[in-house]
């Protein structure tokens, strides 16, 4: 572990990466973290910090502002991300031209407070992310419950949409924003819709604000998953699909999801998830 101001190296042969600064020939660490060496690149990976967006990350975000031809989205990073009007699916087809009415009607698609999932398309030079929702598995979120955890506890994996036992889907954003929702076999299709059919499939429903009916049993299940995730967060356990599954199974031992708020029970669930 290195701390800010600690001398890391005074050799010039190393390339300096994140988490360090140099004065003359000497390189000092600027954060609390561990030194990592990849070939000639030396960097300090911080133990704590806000989410840093990278190209290709699947994130969940909340609209905070509607601007001219773009939206600003809070993804829990140092700056709000930008979602351009040209990066969303406009109802009516993929090849549809953007018209002036689209600009004026932006609030009809996404307004302040809406949640959506998107992918990071590019990073601006100042570090802000640019998102896109150009696929039917991205877009406005419905029928679920939002929970936020520190982004350092998220294990990056290939897929971030988990279909969990109990009729519940979990959208596990890399930025630590999580959406737990009722599983829907959506008619607009999720994976496997060929791009040529997007024109017929993308109707106005993708921007609807109406939630479907969610039964009491599913609500209880969603509450249990949320409680299990909070238990893992409390014990600072990094999370992926298998661990959340095990935590949920451990939580079934308790009669109601409300019991999962107790700290002792949280520790017990985290132990079960790690075993």
């Amino acid at each position, binding site marked *: 572990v290195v701390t800010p101001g600690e001398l890391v190296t005074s050799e010039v042969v190393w390339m300096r990466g994140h988490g360090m*600064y140099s004065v003359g020939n000497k390189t000092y660490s600027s954060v609390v973290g*561990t030194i990592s060496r990849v070939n000639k690149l030396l960097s300090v990976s911080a133990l704590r910090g806000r989410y840093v967006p990278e190209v290709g990350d699947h994130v969940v975000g909340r609209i905070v502002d509607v601007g001219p031809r773009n939206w600003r989205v809070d993804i829990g990073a140092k*700056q709000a991300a930008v979602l351009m009007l040209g990066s969303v699916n406009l109802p009516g087809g993929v090849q549809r031209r953007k018209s002036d009415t689209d600009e004026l009607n932006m609030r009809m698609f996404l307004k302040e407070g809406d949640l959506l999932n998107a992918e990071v398309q590019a990073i601006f030079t*100042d570090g802000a992310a640019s998102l896109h929702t150009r696929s039917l598995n991205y877009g406005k979120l419905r029928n679920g419950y939002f929970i936020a955890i520190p982004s350092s506890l998220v294990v990056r994996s290939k897929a971030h949409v988990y279909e969990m036992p109990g009729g519940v889907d979990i959208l596990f954003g890399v930025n630590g924003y999580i959406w737990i929702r009722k599983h829907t076999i959506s008619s607009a299709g999720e994976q496997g819709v060929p791009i040529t059919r997007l024109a017929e499939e993308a109707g106005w429903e993708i921007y609807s604000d109406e939630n479907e009916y969610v039964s009491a049993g599913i609500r209880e299940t969603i509450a249990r998953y949320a409680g299990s995730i909070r238990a893992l967060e409390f014990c600072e356990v*990094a999370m992926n699909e298998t661990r959340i599954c095990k935590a949920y199974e451990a939580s079934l031992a308790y009669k109601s999801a409300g019991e999962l708020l107790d700290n002792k029970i949280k520790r017990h669930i985290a132990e079960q998830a790690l075993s």
Partner: protein
Amino acid sequence: MSSRLEIYSPEGLRVDGRRWNETRHFKCSINTHPVSSDGSSLVEQGNTKVICNVVGPKEPTQRSKLNTERATINVKIIVAPFSTLERRKRSQNDHRLQELCITLQHVFEKAIIAHLQARSQIDILLYVLSQDGGMLQACLNATTLALIDAGIPMYDYISASTAGMFDKEALLDLNRLEESAMPLLTIATVGKSNRIALLQMENKIQFEALEPMMAVALSGCHHIRDLMDQEIRRHGKSRLNQSRDQ
């Protein structure tokens, strides 16, 4: 009357039994508020207790404050009415508090690597729970720890200490009683070096008295820096062990 309490006895003991070069009991902890802020700390120097919460870097709340080259720092200090001997409610527009906020802002603008956080805002909130001398000193130390806990890149620790001069004797780390009896000097250094980040003195002293006071205060700053570094390393190691087991 003051004759009961000897500020500095002939045997070399102060009112609380310390020698001239001993600091008060220093205790600190970080990540005390994991939910409400990105970085937090609690610093106790003797009976002076300060909590610091850091939120950021985040989008600036006001567009006018957006600085394209560096981060903007906002400091807010709230002094609890129960922090002093007599209960006293301090208004937010208190002249002294505003001055303190601006001082801290200037110090930390230089201490963080600001060009890496362009276009963002860092909010520093300090809560003074108990005052027994050395409020500025404790606020500086608490802010350093909270900024490090938040993972904001910094050049080095900013550690602060106070010193006073009583009858040609330089004393380290004054408490409230001593502060009212002698001139007070607050110094903050950058890490282990002797580079000074802040120097504040509001009384009049002879010029020759300045050097011994500064020497004593600098050694106090380095001592505090080592104690803070110990706690940061301990916390870092325990976090690393927790994530390694998984």
